[in-house]
């Protein structure tokens, strides 16, 4: 049962019924729903072409092996096989995908298929194309690959020793490493009354596995050399930047088309290797080819979230509980290929201090390759791992010093009056009220009666624990942060595009550059345009999906990193404002008055105060498009406006690794109550609250839906979802049989609340908020910690994922984990 309590500071949207003027802020019916509830959406696998071939990848069973030979002859003998592709051909026909990192990472060679060596189980070695899906798979079994197994390395700290090296060209497993040092950590240590040391924390490897796996149908036009890729790539702008140079063609030769996508969560950003292989096959066989990834392929070889180990954490604290800062050594395991990495080595710096006011932070960061599946920016990317670190520090320190976790947070949270708040490394938190959100969350789980609940739980033989998870969702990247990793990179700022036109019959048509996967872009776009043009969302036709041929996209186009409400709608607002201006100019020219005399309302352009003198949209569209004789010569309008939204960013100071890396910071504060059965380690989440503050809400229901979804994914990651490998490099949770994703009965009762702290930096006062920052993981870890041990004794929750067996093991020998923590009091 969901109760939404509305307790905003400044009641902008007070009660469900009462709304602001206009459509923004209302829960209008989503435009996407009509087709989706009738099964009439178009997902990539629904697209068919005459005589298309089905692609099946031959994947490595070895985690690390040299490829001595690939023999496709038997596969070709199968009736119905159209052709094959091997790594040797790929090495000749394409160049390696460019690497973001500096050496040694820069020297890694990453191709569409494995060349010379396989580096993780599932690494694609060859591809077979056949008339039917089943034939392609049958023939793939006849491809004989002669592997020479090599020693493998699965642990990041082991990989650092470079005894087993994955990429000879790089001659090291280190992709990137660097130190970050802000404030005066040594000074803070000297000034501290207590210094808490935490030897080890580990953020486990998991992924928010979208229900639709990846895939594409690729057509090649031999005459023009043009590829059309019907696929579910969620960041085609960057995908094309990788693929075009590899295929040695201009970017415009790659047309990305998608309509409906079944969830992305960052897992559909690094699809360029498989898509490149399909492009080669479409050209080689001169026929459309279609690749559908199945669940087991998606788990073993598509993408995982970053796995990160934190070592030697040192936290200076004053007697009154003021936290002065922290130092940590972080080792990030990016699997066999960096691809989108090492961007994760800097993205966490968007939220360096988390929600807290400590000023002295030192991080020694290293990213390393291992013989596991490559990573990609899974929802919460890199910030989630870091926020989990800061929350674990707060709770462990509070536990050791006997401080109340609520008081410690309130004392150290950035205060409401300090916004916009500049962090130690130059990021600017735009607005927020963390303490207020925490109060609402605690109220929703009945925190004041927690001790009664603890007694009741104990009467049933259960250990009760309550935990808080405070996170930030930094949105709208300044890609200039990539230059901190590699000064030679030519990426900075951000952008997104939208085109709004008034058609000949007066229909408003909007074309976006984004790639929605369920965020309701068509709906929120229609709300914004309707309020600007003075018509209703039903009259706005927002083209579904993405098509690079619409020429309404730019380099950073796509849907990722919590930014649509800012960049996407920023572009829409910019285009709609200009169009409104042009419509007023046209009406003024027709009525012989000035544009300021014209207002847009009720789908008309009319003279203020004289509603009879009105031109319906249809008239405006017709005049310019088909009846423009007699219009003034200087009337330079097109009624077809393409607007590029660009947030104001500066290039960061590379020396000090200082600068504003993100435009907006949405808040999510979660609180949860668990009951642990000490006899088995089984635990239930009996109460849960999530409070969010993402600035002005364009469509409250959509915002809440994102909170529900991000919470469910976090709870899955906190309880059961983990990618575990055996010593051979086999993934032991390769599909939903052993990788348990929460279903309807697993979810606890979810209560939500919200406030709206308008963002001063964005066109609509809104903030991106889709990633949620993994608050559920932090809250569950804190609640388990609270349940399992009183002050100073009991185990330490040091891993992000805690299935029952880990809870039981922690209970059996608390010392095993307690030894990670030591307190030095002066």
């Amino acid at each position, binding site marked *: 049962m969901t109760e939404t309590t509305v307790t905003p500071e400044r009641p902008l949207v007070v009660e469900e019924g009462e709304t602001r003027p206009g459509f923004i802020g209302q829960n209008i019916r989503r435009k996407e729903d009509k087709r*989706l509830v009738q099964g009439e959406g178009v997902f990539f696998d629904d697209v068919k072409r005459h005589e298309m071939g089905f692609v099946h990848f031959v994947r490595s069973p070895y985690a690390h092996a040299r490829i001595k030979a690939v023999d496709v002859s038997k596969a070709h003998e199968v009736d119905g096989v159209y052709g094959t592709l091997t790594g040797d051909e790929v090495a000749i026909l394409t160049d390696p995908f460019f690497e973001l990192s500096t050496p040694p990472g820069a020297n890694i060679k990453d191709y569409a298929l494995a060349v010379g060596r396989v580096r993780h189980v599932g690494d694609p070695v060859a591809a077979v194309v056949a008339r039917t899906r089943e034939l392609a798979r049958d023939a793939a079994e006849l491809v004989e690959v002669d592997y020479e197994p090599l020693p493998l390395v699965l642990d990041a700290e082991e990989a650092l020793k470079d005894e087993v090296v994955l990429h000879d060209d790089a001659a090291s497993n280190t992709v990137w490493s660097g130190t970050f040092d802000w404030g005066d950590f040594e000074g803070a240590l000297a000034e501290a009354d207590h210094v808490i040391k935490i030897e080890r924390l580990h953020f486990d490897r998991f992924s928010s596995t979208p229900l639709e796996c990846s895939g594409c149908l690729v057509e090649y036009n031999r005459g023009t050399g043009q590829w059309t890729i019907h696929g579910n790539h969620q960041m085609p702008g960057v995908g094309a930047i990788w693929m075009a140079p590899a295929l040695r063609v201009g970017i415009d030769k790659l047309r990305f088309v998608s309509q409906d996508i079944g*969830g992305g969560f960052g897992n559909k950003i690094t699809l360029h290797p498989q898509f490149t292989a399909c492009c080669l096959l479409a050209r080689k066989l001169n026929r459309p080819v279609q690749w559908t990834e199945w669940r087991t392929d998606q788990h073993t070889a598509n993408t995982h979230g970053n796995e990160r180990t934190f070592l030697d954490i040192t936290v200076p604290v004053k007697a009154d509980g003021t936290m002065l800062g922290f130092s940590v050594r972080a080792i990030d395991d990016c699997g066999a290929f960096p691809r989108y990495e090492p961007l994760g080595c800097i993205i966490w710096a968007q939220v360096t201090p988390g929600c807290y006011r400590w000023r002295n932070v030192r991080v020694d960061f290293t990213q390393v390759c291992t013989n596991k599946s490559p990573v990609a920016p899974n929802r919460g990317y890199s910030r989630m791992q870091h926020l989990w670190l800061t929350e674990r520090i707060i709770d462990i320190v509070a536990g050791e010093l006997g401080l109340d976790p609520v008081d410690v947070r309130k004392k150290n949270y950035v205060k409401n009056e300090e916004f916009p708040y500049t962090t130690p490394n130059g990021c600017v938190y735009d607005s927020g009220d963390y303490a207020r959100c925490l109060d609402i969350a605690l109220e929703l789980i009945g925190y004041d009666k927690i001790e009664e609940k603890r007694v009741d739980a104990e009467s049933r033989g259960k250990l009760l624990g309550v935990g808080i998870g405070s996170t930030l969702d930094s949105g709208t990247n300044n890609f200039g942060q990539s230059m901190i990793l590699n000064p030679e990179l030519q990426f900075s700022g951000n952008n997104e595009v939208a085109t709004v036109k008034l058609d000949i019959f007066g229909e408003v048509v909007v074309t976006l550059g984004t790639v929605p996967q369920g965020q309701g872009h068509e709906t929120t776009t229609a709300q914004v345009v309707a309020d600007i043009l003075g018509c209703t969302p039903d009259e706005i036709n927002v083209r579904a999906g993405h098509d690079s041929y619409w020429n309404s996209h730019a380099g950073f186009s796509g849907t990722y990193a919590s930014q649509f409400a800012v960049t996407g709608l920023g572009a829409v607002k910019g285009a709609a404002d200009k169009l409104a201006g042009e419509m007023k100019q046209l009406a003024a020219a027709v009525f012989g008055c000035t544009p300021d005399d014209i207002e847009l309302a009720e789908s008309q352009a009319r003279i203020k105060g004289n509603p009879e003198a009105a031109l319906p949209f249809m008239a405006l569209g017709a005049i310019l498009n088909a009846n423009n004789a007699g219009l003034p010569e200087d009337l330079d309008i097109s009624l077809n406006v393409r607007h590029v939204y660009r947030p104001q960013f500066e290039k960061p100071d590379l020396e000090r690794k200082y600068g504003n890396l993100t435009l907006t910071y949405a808040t999510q504060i979660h609180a949860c109550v668990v009951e642990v059965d000490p006899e088995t380690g089984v635990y239930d989440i009996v109460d849960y609250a999530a409070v969010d503050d993402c600035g002005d809400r364009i469509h409250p229901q959509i915002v809440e839906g994102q909170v529900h979804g991000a919470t*469910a994914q976090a709870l899955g990651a906190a309880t059961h979802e983990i990618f575990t490998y055996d010593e051979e490099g086999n993934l032991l949770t390769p*599909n939903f049989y052993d990788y348990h994703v929460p*279903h309807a009965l697993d979810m606890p009762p979810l209560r939500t609340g919200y406030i709206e702290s308008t963002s001063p930096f964005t066109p609509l006062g809104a903030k991106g908020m889709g990633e949620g920052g993994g608050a559920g993981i932090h809250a569950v870890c804190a609640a388990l910690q609270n349940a399992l041990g009183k002050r100073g004794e009991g185990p330490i929750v040091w891993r992000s994922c805690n299935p029952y067996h880990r809870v039981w093991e922690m209970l059996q020998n608390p010392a095993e984990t307690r030894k990670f923590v030591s307190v030095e009091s002066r």
Partner: protein
Amino acid sequence: MDVNVTVNGESYERDVEPRKLLIHFLRDDLDLTGSHIGCDTGNCGACSVIVDGVLVKSCMMLAVQADGSNVETVEGLAQDGELNGLQQAFSEHHGLQCGYCTPGMLMSATALLRANPHPSEEEIRTGIQGNICRCTGYVNIVEAIKAAAE
């Protein structure tokens, strides 16, 4: 093998390999792409359809097993373009985001409400336990089914 099947009231006859799963038959042979595939172990329920009145996962049935059966899929819920009560409720309560699990959810909810017109929240959650959704956390789906039941 020869398969005669009625899907959403329309009858089809095709020659089908025994190894072809019903979900592939619906999507690839009959071009009814409303039902989806989300896993390869029979866990996710995106392929749920109703065969002879019984809710099943069509990825764990061979097409040849549906010979002579009556299959209902999401494409058959709306009557000449008019959404039914369940479809309306899903949209009204934001019970879908990406829409990939929605066809399976709608078929499970349809089967649930036919058998139990006024289910409790626990019964609703049990009814859709076989349908994984990664976007909504199930909150609004349960609200939508509750609303459709009234």
